[in-house]
C-alpha cells in the first residue's frame, strides 16, 4: 500500500464543491507535485490530509492507518510534517527555538520533569540544541540562530518553516506553496533542499502554483481543476495533456 492514499474524498463549503471525489496515492520515497489554478482545491486537500479540516465523505489512509477523522496533532505525531501557505512561524521565539519546538514530539518529559529540570531533561535539551543547530546549518540560518524569528526576512522565514517541519523527522512532508514569494536564488536553494530531503528518505507532497519548479523536482504530478482530478502522471505526460493546458490557459485568462 502507498504511504498516503486518499479515496474518493469530497468537501463542500456552503454548497460549493471544493473537492469532488478526489483519489490520490503517494508512494514512499517519491516527490509528488500537486498543481492547479487558483481555487482548484489544492489547499483544501492539504487541510483535509493534515486534519485541520474534516472531509464530508471519503477516506484517507496514512501508513495503512485511517486518519480521516483523527485530530491534527495525532496525525502529525504519526510522522507527517507540513508547512502552510500563509507563513506560520512562531515570531515570539528565537530561530533556534522554532526548530527545537518542531522536535517537541521526539523530546521526552512532562510538566513535572521539566519543571524540576531532572538530569535527563538537561541532557535531552542539550542534544536538541545541538541537533537544531545542525539543521540550521544545513538551511544556512546558523548565523541568525539567536535572533527572534519575526526579525528574519520573508524568504528566510519560509526556510525556517521548512526546517521546523524537518525537525520532526517526518516520513511524509506536505509543502504548501513553498516557493511563493521567494526570489529565484531562493527557489533554487529550496529545490536543492527538497531533493536532499528525498535522498534522506522522506516522501514529499508539494503543492505549487509555480509550474517550473515542480516540473523539475517531482517524480509524479497530479493536476486539480475545479475540485476534480483531471490528470496524473509524469511531468512530461502532464505537460502535454490537453485538458491541463486548457485549464491553465483558462486560469490565466481569468487572472488577467
Amino acid at each position, binding site marked *: 500500500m502507498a504511504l498516503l492514499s486518499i479515496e474518493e474524498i469530497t468537501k463542500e463549503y456552503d454548497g460549493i464543491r471544493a473537492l469532488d471525489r478526489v483519489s490520490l496515492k503517494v508512494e514512499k520515497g517519491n516527490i509528488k507535485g500537486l498543481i492547479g489554478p487558483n481555487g482548484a482545491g489544492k489547499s483544501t486537500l492539504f487541510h483535509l490530509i493534515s486534519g485541520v479540516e474534516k472531509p464530508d465523505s471519503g477516506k484517507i489512509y496514512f501508513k495503512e492507518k485511517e486518519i480521516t477523522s483523527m485530530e491534527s496533532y495525532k496525525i*502529525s505525531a504519526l510522522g507527517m510534517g507540513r508547512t502552510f501557505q500563509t507563513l506560520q512561524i512562531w515570531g515570539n521565539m*528565537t530561530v533556534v527555538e522554532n526548530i527545537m519546538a518542531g522536535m517537541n514530539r521526539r523530546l521526552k*518529559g512532562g*510538566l513535572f520533569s521539566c519543571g524540576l*529540570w531532572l538530569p535527563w531533561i538537561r541532557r535531552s535539551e542539550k542534544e536538541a540544541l545541538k541537533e537544531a543547530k545542525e539543521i540550521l546549518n544545513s538551511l544556512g540560518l546558523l548565523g541568525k540562530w*539567536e535572533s527572534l524569528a519575526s526579525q528574519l526576512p520573508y524568504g528566510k522565514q519560509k526556510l525556517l518553516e521548512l526546517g521546523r517541519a524537518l525537525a520532526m523527522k517526518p516520513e511524509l512532508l506536505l509543502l504548501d506553496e513553498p516557493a511563493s514569494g521567494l526570489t529565484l536564488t531562493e527557489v533554487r536553494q529550496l529545490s536543492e533542499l527538497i531533493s536532499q530531503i528525498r535522498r534522506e528518505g522522506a516522501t514529499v507532497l508539494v503543492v505549487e502554483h509555480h509550474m517550473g519548479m515542480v516540473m523539475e523536482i517531482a517524480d509524479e504530478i497530479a493536476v486539480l481543476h475545479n475540485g476534480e482530478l483531471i490528470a496524473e502522471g509524469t511531468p512530461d505526460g502532464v505537460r502535454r495533456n490537453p485538458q491541463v493546458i486548457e485549464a491553465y490557459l483558462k486560469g490565466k485568462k481569468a487572472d488577467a
Partner: protein
Amino acid sequence: MVETKKNEFRKRDLFYLVPLWLISLIAPDPYLYHKKEFKKKDLFYLGAIYLAPLIWFDLHFHHLMVLAGIYAILALGLSLFMGYAGQISLGHAAFFGIGAYTTAILTTRYGLPTFMAFGASAVSAVVIAYLIGRPILKLKGYFLALATLGFGEIFLVIVRESTDLTGGVIGIFGIPWFSVMGFSFDTYLKQYYLTWGVLIGLFIFSKNLVRSKVGRALLAVAASEDAASSVGINVPRIKLEIFVLGAAFAGLAGSLFACVMSTANPEAFSLGFTVLIVMMVILGGMGNLYGPVAGAILLTWLMDSLSKYQEYSLPIYGAILILLLIFFPDGIGTRLNVRVIYLIGYWAKKKKRDEGKL
C-alpha cells in the same frame, strides 16, 4: 582640540550612563526569550530578598511584602497561562479563594495542621481547575475571558450562599498561623521568609518549565495553534495542564493568605481582585517571569500608599495605571533596560564615529 572635545563628551555621558548601567545590572533582561538560563543577577535578587526586611526593619513593610509575595505567587501562575500560552483568565481569584477556604475549613473545623491544609488547598484547586478547564478551554479569546469571569462569579455566589460551610458573607475567623513541625510562623518577618521561600521555589520551577520543551510548546500555542498541532503538540492538553498548574499556584497562595490574615471572606476574592492580579501580570510584562513579581510588589505598594486618600484612591489608581500602560506598554523594568541598551549602543557608535574622524 578634537581630543579635548571627545573627553568632554565622554564625561558628560558618564553622568547618565553610570546610573543607567547600574539599572541594567539590576533589571531583568528585555525581550530576550532565549536567554532563559539562571544568571548572576538571580543571585543578586536572592540576596536582596534575604536582606531587604532586615535592613528595612519595619512591621508595616514586612506585612506589605508578605502580601506582595502571596500576590506574586498568584501572578506567576497566571503569567504562565496569559503571558506564555497567550490565553485569558479572569477567574483566577476563584482558585485563590478555593485555596483560602480549603485551608480555613480544614484547620478551623477539622483541626488539621496548617501544612497539611496547605497541600490540600493545592489539590482542591487542581481538581476544580481540571473539571472547569476541560470544557471551558475549548473557547478562545474573549469567550474564554467571559467564561472564566462567569466561573469566578459563580464561585462567589456559592461561597456567599452556603453559610454552613463557608460562613457566608461574614467568612471564617481564627485560622491559625502557618506552622510546620511545631515551628510557628507567628511574626511578619517569619511569614515574609515563608512566602518568599515558597515564591522562590515556584519561580525556579516555572523558569525551568519555560526554558524546556513545555515553554516552547506554550509559546507555539500562543503564536499559532495550527502550526503547533502541525508539529504534534497536543494543544488542548497543554492548555489544560498550564491552566491547572496556574490554579495550583493560586491555591497555594490562597492558603498562605488565609494563614497570614487568619480570616477568609468573600470580599477578598471579588472581580476587583481578579482585575488587580491581571494588572500585575500586564504591568510587570507578559512573557517574562520577573514581570509578575515586579508587578505584584508595585501594585501592593501602590494600593497601600493610596489607601490614605481613601475617597480619591480609585481615580488616582486608574490614572497611574493608564500612564504606566502608555509609557511602559511592555511592562516595567524590561522597558527601562531596553532604553539602557539603546543608549549604550548609541554612545558606542558615536565614539567609533568620532575616532574614525581622527
